[in-house]
Structures are given as C-alpha cells and as structure tokens.
C-alpha cells in the first residue's frame, strides 16, 4: 500500500454523500450555488475515479486490489471497500456519465422540481458504493441507496407517463430488493459470512449436503440482479421507465443496469470460478442473455420513437453482456468489458440526444410521413420538373444530426467507432475461445457461440434499420423545421460523451489491454481474495494487537 492517498477509495462514496447534505442545506433559492456544487462534485468524482483507476491499473497483470477496512475491522467481520481494476473501471464510467448528465441537467432539468441535485448525488453514492463494496449486505445497502434515489429521480418532473412507469418501476424494484434479502439471508445461513472474499474462499468447504441450499440461495439472489440487469423476461419495466424519465436521469439510469451486470460478473467469477459449483448458472445466463438480445432486437424493430429505441438498446447491450458472462472465458469477458464501456457511453449519449432531437419543431405544414405504411407504387423521380433544391440544415440541426449519426454508429456497432471495435472484439473472442486475440485457426467453436455470433450481427442490423428509420423521421421528414434551442451545456455534455467514445476508439488498444487484465483478474480471483483477507486493521488504542486467529 504505497499509493498516494490510502483512503481515497472512500471518496467516491463520501464525497457525493456530503455534497448531497450540503445541497440540502443550501435551500431552494440558491440555484447557482447548487448547480456549481453538483457539477463540481461530479467532476471531482471523475478525477478521484481516474486516480483510483490509475492506482489499480499500475499493479502489473495480477493487479493490486486496494482494500480499505471500514471502521477498522478486518474482512469477514467488518465491511471492506475494494478497488480492483473492474471496480475502478466502473467508477470511471460513473464519473464520466454523471459529469455529463449533471452538466446537461443544468440547462433545465435541475430546476424542474424539488431536490434534484441532492437525489442525483445520492444516486452517485449508491452507484459508486455498489461498485466498491466487498460485502454482500453492504451491497444491498448501496443497492437501496441507488434505488431510493432513482425513485425520486425517475419521478422528477412528474407527468403521468413518469408516474405510471415510475410506480411500476418502484414495485418491481421493491420485489427485487426482497428477493435480494431472501437470497442474502440463505447465503448467510449457509456460509455464516457476508464478505464476498470470505464466501469465495469458504465456498469450497461447504459440505455437500448444504450445497443445494447454497445454490437455491444464490439463484434467488441472482434473480434480484438479473432484474436490475434487465434480462428477458424480467425486463418489461425498463423501456417504459427509461423512456419516460427526464434525459439526464435516463443517461444515469443506463449505468444502473450495469450495476446488475457488474455484480453478476463479480460474484459469478468470485464464487463459481472453480470447485464443486464451478460455472453455476452459466448456461442460464448464456441462453437467457441470447434471448434478451433477441428480445431487444425485436423491440428495436418494433419501435418508432427514439426514447424506446434507446431503451431497447439498453436491453440489447444487457443481453450481450449477460450472454458473454455466460460464456465464462476470459477472452469473452475482456471483450464484454470493452463493450460495456462503449455501450454505456453510447446509450447515455443517445438518451441525452432523444430530448434534444424531439425538440426539433415542425411548422406543421407537412404531415410527417409515417414510415409504417407501405408506400404507393412508383413515386415519380421527376415530378416537379424543376431543378431540385436541397434544404439547408440550420446549424443546430446539423450538429444534432451529426451527433445522432455518431450515436447511431455507436449503438448499432457500425464502423468505425468504438461500438464496432467492441463488437469486433466480442466476435473475435467468440471465434477463438481459448483467447489469444488473433483469430486462432482451427479451434472448435461451441454451438452457443455461433448463435451468439449470429445474434450480435443481426441485432446490429435491427439497430441500423431502426435508427435509420428514426433518423429519417426526425431529421428528414419533419417538413419545414424550426431549429431547436440548444444550450451550451447540453451540447457540451453530449459532446463530452461522444468524445469519450472517440477516445475509446482511438485508444482501443490500451483500453483492451486493461480490460483483458481485468478479465484475467476476474477469472482467477485468488489475488482479490488474498488482498481482502490479508488486510489487517491498523492497531490502535482500543485494538492493541490483532490476534491472527479468528475466534
């Protein structure tokens, strides 16, 4: 532990918490101060996350998981925060998306209702905490923090679609939380411990007669995460909720499905990498993930409105990640991590864009042609008999159009942006199950991988068709159009997300190196377990000596 700030990994939790408290103290009137505090805290969060990633990525291939003992109690007994590469990557993702969402919210949404900023920060606290914690019950707490804030944020701005989908969202998540608790209780009943690392170490020691109960508990627990990760058929809540809520919140919510994925990724590799329960649930994840991709692709084909398209893209990306998780090989996991970064940023950008695009007014002269009806026979190519004159796009629409195109490329995984690199890395990893990057000749490919391969390509096609349809509808067909008012902060936040994707494209190689190190670390969790369990509390006045042996 020779890093610069040993306790820095508490900051992603404490910083938003204190910011939220200060925001509440600021009162309703001082809008400017609140805006500055919110954006400033998000920026600080991003910087902290980058520093943590820097620290986590420095420690060679085995990786140095940084561990901090909360309240100075060692691992199985107290709560630990662990920042390994995966957690750090997720923190950076939260940092980037939250900064852009916070910036975007300053244009209008931040002032639309009560306590937006405070709830926003609490949501960040929940997200960060969930990514950092190494304790299952603490994970539940942070899930609750995240969800409690998300209820408020989702309903922010009111209106019946929000309230309606919001109440469904709350009900589903309450049920999910109950399942979480049930699973947790069973797991604790069998294992007698809540620390993830401790469970991972002791899971091999579980007597055979307890294994059934252990598996049942793990399955119930997994259902809670699968709901969050939007697996089919447990994802009907997602599209109405995400498309109804305000743009910055939707962008933030794109992160929340990734929490479910993250936890599944963390726990499945930690608990079920080896031993008698190895690969537990892998098949379910794989096939349900594939079904989720198919469901998402069908949803994309069926959707006309951009909000729904964005929602179904979240589902497609969730399905992709779950299926990759189900494949259970480091190469696929590494590719999936890259995909997760790219897809999250892209979908967040798309959510921000939805609202801006829908702002493009029409002067009402022309009916928007409904692309859902079959066109008449042969439209004459030359019916006006005058030289055709194109319509110039106003600058704001041209910029939005460009941004939309970039988002569409990213979401559909078309070249040349990071969406394509991500998809390519997944496809390559599927074809070379033993890893090694380059297409390794000759190795047999399992049948599920072929289905996955085809579905990835087909979902890309569905996204292309759907996004082209939406693009034509919003940018080309809307008759004489009134340029939307585009505020600088909105443009900046959108640009920020897109820029991150472009950077991800340009520096795909170093990022892939990090993700493959992350995946390697995940699939051989020994280092993680040791780092957590070997962390000793600092001796102090009330705890003079630490006896090696647990009572």
């Amino acid at each position, binding site marked *: 532990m020779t890093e610069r700030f040993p*306790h820095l990994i*508490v900051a992603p939790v*404490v910083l938003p*918490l*204190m910011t939220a408290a200060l925001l*509440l103290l600021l*009162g*309703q009137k001082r809008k400017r101060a609140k805006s500055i505090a919110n954006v400033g805290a998000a920026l600080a969060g991003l910087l902290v996350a980058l520093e943590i990633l820097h620290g986590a990525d420095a420690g060679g291939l085995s990786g140095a998981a940084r561990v901090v003992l909360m*309240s*100075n109690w060692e691992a199985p007994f107290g709560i630990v925060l662990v920042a390994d590469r995966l957690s750090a990557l997720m923190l950076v993702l939260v940092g980037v998306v939250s900064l852009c969402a916070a910036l975007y919210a300053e244009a209008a949404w931040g002032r639309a209702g009560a*306590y937006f900023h405070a709830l926003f920060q*609490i949501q960040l*606290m929940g997200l960060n905490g969930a990514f950092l914690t190494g304790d299952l019950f603490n994970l539940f707490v942070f899930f609750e*923090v995240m969800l*409690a804030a998300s*209820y408020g944020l989702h*309903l922010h701005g009111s209106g019946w679609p929000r309230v309606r989908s919001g109440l469904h969202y709350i*009900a*589903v998540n309450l*049920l*999910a939380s109950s*399942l979480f608790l*049930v699973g947790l*209780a069973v797991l604790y009943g*069998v294992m*007698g411990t809540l620390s993830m690392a401790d469970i991972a170490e002791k899971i091999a020691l579980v007597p055979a007669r307890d*294994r*059934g*109960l252990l598996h*049942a508990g793990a*399955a*119930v627990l997994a259902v809670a995460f699968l709901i969050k990760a939007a697996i089919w*058929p*447990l994802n009907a809540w997602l599209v109405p909720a995400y498309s109804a809520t305000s743009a910055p919140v939707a962008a933030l919510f794109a992160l929340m499905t990734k929490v479910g994925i993250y936890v599944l990724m963390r726990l499945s590799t930690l608990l079920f990498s080896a031993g008698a329960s190895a690969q537990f*649930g892998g098949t*379910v994840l794989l096939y349900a993930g594939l079904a989720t991709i198919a469901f998402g692709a069908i949803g994309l084909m*069926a959707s006309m409105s951009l909000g729904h398209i964005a929602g179904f893209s979240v589902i497609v990306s969730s399905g992709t990640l779950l299926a990759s998780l189900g494949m259970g090989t480091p190469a696929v996991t590494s590719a999936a991590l890259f995909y997760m970064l790219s897809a999250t940023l892209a979908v967040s950008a798309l959510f921000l864009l939805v609202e801006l695009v829908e702002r493009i007014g029409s002067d009402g002269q022309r009916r928007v*042609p409904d692309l859902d009806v*079959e066109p008449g026979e042969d439209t004459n*190519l030359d019916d006006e008999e005058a*030289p055709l004159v*194109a*319509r*110039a*796009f106003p600058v704001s629409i041209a910029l939005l159009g460009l941004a939309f195109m970039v988002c569409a490329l990213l979401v559909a995984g078309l070249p040349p942006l990071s969406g394509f690199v991500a998809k*390519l*890395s997944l496809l390559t990893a599927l074809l070379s199950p033993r890893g090694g*990057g380059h*297409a390794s*000749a000759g190795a047999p490919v399992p049948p599920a991988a072929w289905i996955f391969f*085809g579905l990835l*390509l087909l979902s890309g*096609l569905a996204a*292309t068709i759907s996004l082209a349809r939406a693009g*034509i509808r919003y940018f*080309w067909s809307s008759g004489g159009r009134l340029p939307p008012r585009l505020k600088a902060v909105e443009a900046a936040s959108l640009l920020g997300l897109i820029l991150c994707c472009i950077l991800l494209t340009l520096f795909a190689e170093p990022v*892939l190196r990090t993700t493959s190190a992350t995946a390697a670390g995940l699939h051989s969790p020994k280092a993680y377990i040791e780092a957590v369990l070997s962390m000793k509390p*600092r001796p*102090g006045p009330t705890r003079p000596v630490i006896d090696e042996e*647990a009572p």
Partner: protein
Amino acid sequence: MPLAALLLLPFLGSVLTALLPTRARSELAACAGFVSAGAAVWVISLFPRVRDGGVIRETISWVPSLGLDLVLRLDGFAWMFAVLITVIGALVCLYARYYMSPEDPVARLYAFLLAFMGAMLGVVLSGNLVQLVVFWELTSLVSFLLIGYWHHRVDAQRGARMALTVTGAGGLALLGGVLLLGHIVGSYELDVALASGDRVRAHPLYPAALVLILLGALTKSAQFPFHFWLPRAMAAPTPVSAYLHSATMVKAGVFLLARLWPVLSGTELWFWIVSGAGMTTLLLGAYIAMFQHDLKRVLAYSTISHLGLITLLFGLNSSLAAVAGVFHIMNHATFKASLFMAAGVVDHETGTRDIRRLNGLIRSMPRTGALALVASGAMAGVPLLNGFLSKEMFFAETMFFSAHPSVEVMLPVVATIAAIFAVVYSLRFGYDIFFGPPSTDLPRQPEEAPRWMRTPIELLVLSCLIVGVAPTISIGPSLAAAARPVVGGTLPEYSLAIWHGFNPPFVMSLVAIAGGVLGYLWLRKHQEQGRLQDAPFVGRLNARRLFESALLGLTRLSRRVLRLAGTRRLQTQMFTIIAVALLLALLAARGVPLEWGDRDRLPASPAFVLLWVIGAVCAVGAAVMAKFHRLIAITLMGGAGLVTCLTFMWFSAPDLALTQIVVEIITTILLLLGLRWLPMRIEGISRPVTARDRMRRGRDLLLAIGAGSGLAALSYAMLTRPAPHSISPFFLSRALPEGGGANVVNVMLVDFRAFDTLGEITVLGAVALTVYALLRRFRPPPESIEQPHQQRAFPADVVTDLVKPRTAEDAARGYMMVPAVIARLLLPVSVLVAAHFLLRGHNEPGGGFVAGLVVAIAMLMQYMVSGALWLEARARLRPVRWIAVGLLLGAITGLGALAVGYPFLTTHTAHVRLPLVGEVHLPSATFFDLGVFAVVVGATLLTLTALAHQSLRAHRRPTQSPASSTSEGTS
C-alpha cells in the same frame, strides 16, 4: 507515408468543404475538385511502383490485439480502382458545379462526395480484411446520406433507407464472413489470406464464409436478388449517381470478388452462386432496362446488367475471364459515368428525363448528343469503342467455357440475348431522344450545356475512344498491372487486338447488333401504339415492393412478438418475476443434495404457536382485504407487525423488538394518513366471472402457494443449520472490549457495520425527499377533496357547538381539545425518553434510530390533533435540514478517523472526567448515532408534512385563497 496521406486527403477536404459557406458553389467545387485532382495525380504517379506486380504497403497500428490495424496496401488492381475513384471523382466535382442549382446549399454535397472518395479509397487500399469492412460500411453510410441529399422528398428517403438496409445488411454479413475467413487462416491480413487459398477451400467453414462474403459482395453490387435498391438510389442527384451508383461504389462488390478471387474461387459452390447470380442479373437487368422510360432508370438497370456481366466473368473460375472482368470494370466505369452525366445534362436543360417526351435533341444540343451517342455505342458494344473489347472477351469466355453440357450451351445463348437487349436499350437511350422530330412540349427550351459541364463527359468519352481504337498502347500496361494480382500473380495469355479474325465471338457481336437494331425497331413500333410500356412477365414481381412489405411485415411481426414476450402490466411482471425466482431456485437446487439441517430443534410452546397463528391470520387477512378494504388491510398488517415484534421479545431481542414496535407505529400511521387521499374503491362493477378468470386466479393461487412454501422451506432449511463458519461469535466477543459497548446490536450499527448504517440513513433521507418531491405536485382527486363523512355530519347552516375544525386555524379547538392537551403535554416527555434512548443506546436497548422515531411519533401526534397550520405557525420544523445535518454528522464523524490516520468510521472512546458527573465514556459513535437520530426525525417529519399539506391544498381550493397556502414550512 504516401498511401496514408492519400487516404487522409479526401477526408480533410471533406471537413474543409463542410466549413466553407454553404452556397459558395464555385469555391466549393474548386476546393473539392483540386483535392480529388491532387489525389488523382498522386495515385497515377505511383504507377511505376506497382506496374510489375509491386506492392506498396504501410501499416498504422490501431488495435493489434484484435488483428485490426490500418494496413494500406496498393497493388496494381487497387491502383486501377484508386485511379477510377479519384479521376472520376474530380470530373464529378466539376460536373456538379454546373449541375446543381445555384440556390442549392451544396457544401453538404461536396463534403459527402469527398468523404465517399476517402471511404472508397479506404476499401480499395485495405490490406486488412476487417479494415476493408470498416470502409465498406462507411461507403454504405455516405451513400445513404447522398441518396437522401434531397431529403425532403419521400422517394429520396425511401431510396436511401432501402440502400442502407440492403447494403448495411450485406456489410454485416461480410463482417461475419471475413471473421470466419480470418478464423480459418489465422489472420485478417489480406496477404496471409491470399496466400492460403487451398487451406481455405478445404476448410469445413468454407461454405459459410463464402456465402457470407458473397452476400456482402452481391448486395453491394446490386446483384439479383438484391438488385432492387439501385434503381431506387437514383433519387440521388445525378452527379452522385454517376459517381457512386455506376462508376465506383457499386463496383465495390465486384472489387471484393476480384480481390478474394485467388482465395475463394475455383470451387463448384463459387461457380454456382457467383455465375448464377451474375447471369440472372445480366439478363434481368438488360431486360428490364429496355422498358424503362426514365433516362436514369435505363442507366440504372443497365448498370445492374453490366455488373451482372462482371460478376458472371468472375464466377467462371477461369483466369482469362477474370482478366476480362477487370477490363470490363474499367470500361464500364468510363462509359457509364459519361452516360449518367449526359442524362444529367439532358434533364438539366430540358426539365424532364422521360424518353417518351424527349425527341430530336440533337438539333438543340449537338455536342452533348454526339458524346451521348458515342458512349451508348460503347455500352452497346460497338466496335472501335472500349465496350466492344471487353464484350468480345466475354463472348470468347462463354464460348470456350467447359462445364456441364447444358451450361456450355446456355451460356453463349444468354450472353447473346443480353447483348441484344443491351443494344436495344442503348438505342433507346441514344437514338430515341436525340433523333426524330424535336419535342415541343418540354418544360424548358433545351440548349447546349455550358462548356465546363460538358468537359468531364468529353474526357470520359475520349478515353472510351482511345481505348477502343488503340487498346494495347493505351490500356495494356494498366490492365496487365491490374489483372495480375487478381489472378494470383501470373497473367494468362490474352490479346487486346481489335481484330481477332472472323471467329465465334465476332459473330455473336454481329448477331447482337443486328438483333438489337431489329428489336429496337419492333419495340418502338409497339410502344408508339401504347403497348409494352412495362416489362412483360416481370412487371408484377416487383422486388422493391416485396422488400417494402417484408420490412413492414417484419415491423408488425416484431410488434406482435413484443406484445407476447413483453408486457406493460405490473401484475404480469410481478407474476413473471416470482415465477422465475421460484423456477430458478428449484433448478439450482436440482442435482445437488438439499437437506434439512441438524441443529437442535426447540420444542414448540402452545403460546408461541398461538401467537404465530394470530400473526399468520393477520398476514393472510391483510392480503385478502388489500383489494376490498384498505383500512382493515393496514390494520391487519399492523397486527402481523406486532406479532413479529413479540417474536423478537420471545427470543430475547429487546433492541429489535423496540425498533420494530416504533417502526410499526409510524408506518401504520403514515399509511393511514396517506389512505385518506387514495381514490375510493369503485363498487358495483360486476362482471360475470368467466372460466378464464378462474383459471387465472387458480394460476396465481398456485404460484402464491408455491412461492410461499418455497420461502418457508428455505427459511426452515436455513434455521436448522448451525452455520459452522459463522462470523457472529466474533461480534459478541468483541463488542464490549473493542467496540466499547455492551449492546451488541448498537455496536454493530455504529461501529462494526457503521458503513451500512450510513447507507441506510441515506436511503431514509432519499425516500423522504422523494415522497416530498412527488407529493408536492400531487393534487388529490375530486372525490377525496370533500370532507369525510364524520366531518360532514352537520350541514353548514346548522347551529352547533362543535367548531368545524377545517374552517378554523386550530383544529384542536373543537372535539380534539382534550386529546390535543394530552398530546402537547406528552411532547417534552417524549423528547426526554428519546434522549434517554439515544444516550444509553451503546450499552442497553435504544440508539439513535429508536430515539428519532420516538420524537417523530410525538410530533406526528401534534400534527394529528392540532393540524398542520396550527403547528407550523408555532414551530419551525425544517425536516430537510434535519436530514442534511444528520447525514453530515455521520459523514464527518467518519472522516474524523481519517484525520488521525485511521480508516473511515473508526470509533474511539474518550474517557473524560467531568465535575459532578464523574467519569464519562464518550464514544465517537455517539455523534454518529446523533446523525442517525437527526436523519430519522427529519425523514419522518418530511414524509409527514408532505402528507399533511395535502389536506391544506385540498381544502383551500374550493375557498379560492391560494395565497396563504404557500407556507410549506419546509426548509
């Protein structure tokens, strides 16, 4: 890095033109033209290096771990394509300057044209198969944008979408195929792939890879059955059609066929798919082209047909045919681009492209007419023009092709028929519009096109002539250089002479020309009489319509599937979740032993059993009544909660019991307060219960029983286990010596797992804020606004000694007087009790949570008996501040440990000796607990005020005095 610079140049030009003023068309054209011309000169200057089979390659590292690097590779074949792309690009830029209307904001057009040029150069320069796909998809995308250039037109939108869908789908298939190919050969490098043709053809994955790659190539080159997008793409401005949809982009498909010819060709499968598609397209395209009336569509179908010819040549598995294919690529690009430009001149000058309306244009535009005639001669395959040469080679290939006898016979016949058709449509294009009596009803008076608009056509037609007259000198070296890499390094013997003697191919040419002229005359006669306006036999089989309805059907189908596979109903979602959880838990426990534990069972005592029976009845009753009588349901829930509380007591958990009871009280009261504002249950909707309803209810009941028993089984299994590795003994042994408190539960809350507590109080705060934010905008439904029955017992005009509480400031003035006095007297007592709980919490039952709830209950009572107005006029409650301060207190206490070098939330107990009191243990955890207390008070009060203010709003509205209702009293 000559190639990298060459590739980058058009993209830079694209950005530059996008930034120029959008209507400065001369500047834009000059900028784009010079960029393309510069690129062209650059490419041409590289010829000596690729002339004799040399290859220029450059590598720029991008994602080496995926095998995806920018490998730029220029051999003779790529060089030929690069020349076509840049030279025709430069000519098109010049042409577009005059073609586009002066009002048109053309910056976008030029920017896209240059971007396309870059993308297309990227395709041909790719030395990496994945990189080729990258640029391939880029060309599709730019083509989409260019077809939709006049985006306000529906045909442009549809054409663009169709092109993108077809070529985009093909691109994805190509990606899959390329990945398979890379999987087979072990690398995505083109050179590696080119060197391992035998290995690829022998691999079991070869058919899959081949089909996928061919899907890409055939969609891009508009081959049957994917040909329908190309005529629709004619909605693009004519310069775009000339450039993308005849000369370059549609050639990308045949480019790929040629590029991978050494790897993939030579098998039966290749022959049947490629030459089959090519032959069908050749014939079909030429056939439909004869019957078109729009100049551009004649050319579009003719392009399809010629691409079919090239495809067929590559499909024949003969290297001589491949050379002919390469040759025809060049020839077709030159004469077809010039024809498109000529068509553009005609519609620019006359205002129409309808062949039936255009006649005798040679008088008004002699030069354009002459150029168009020469170019259509090349298209028809007239001797001394370049089209003739490649067509002769094609005929020769069909004659000397040896395969199955039926194919041997069919091939020359088909070739001749297609050639006859080609002569017919060339005559329709050339002869029909330029000769005959001049039209009089044209939208505009035709006149000769501007000089510089004709220049690009002149240059192209000139090259047709030169190649046609002196092929060996003019095109020989380039063709050799271009064809060599395609056939794998060694060129077959071929002769570019104009005259090969009186041999079968020449006879075929003669037959074609003669037959074509006769056919044209026959067709014209019929068409003048109004017959044969549409292509017979295939007119009904409209691939475009099939595509549109397929897409539409797909959308509808997905909606139907979505309705089946997804739901918008909460009930269904809940059912699914519980069913999945049950199913997965059962599945997970399958195959491994699942037994009860062997921990000692406690004997059941009758009293406890009775208690639990009561609890169970309450719980089930609450569930039953939830739908019919909410008040009873809530009351019963309270009953179940009480039983839980008593159970805690029974098992000697006083702390839990204490917390449980206050939580029960407060939640029940809040629920009851909220109940007031829910809409009434609508009685009297009676629908006969159908069998389906019964089935559904039965299904739900089964699930409920299943999930309930599953949960019970889980609990039982869990409770009967001893948990040998449990961490709980640790807490019991360390709480006092190291945690500094005798109350283990409290020490856990504020020390062992204080981090959890910090999170939990945050949850509490967030929930309260949410409730407040939601209810702030909420307006109760009209039926709830009316005063409840109890308060309406007396009409307003009846004199009574009861003061109507709702019209008075102080609700307690009326019948609430006595309870109000008691409640007010209880307030200080409650605060004292709370303080007691808070302070003793570390060692005995109590703590910040319970203390906070006690205070909250006391305040709640004040609200209930005195009313919000009275209370808030006298006490400034600021619940949000309570929450904020509590959270801060918790966080700062935690950070305090950091200051002295300990981890977050580490506790420390200070032993202070105070006068009078004596020794005091002051753990830092007390401050933390104080934070918990503050948050609990704040959160409960905030929820309470949010509910209480509903009543203010609801009753203010009828009396219309909203001004005074704004005092919401919070923060």
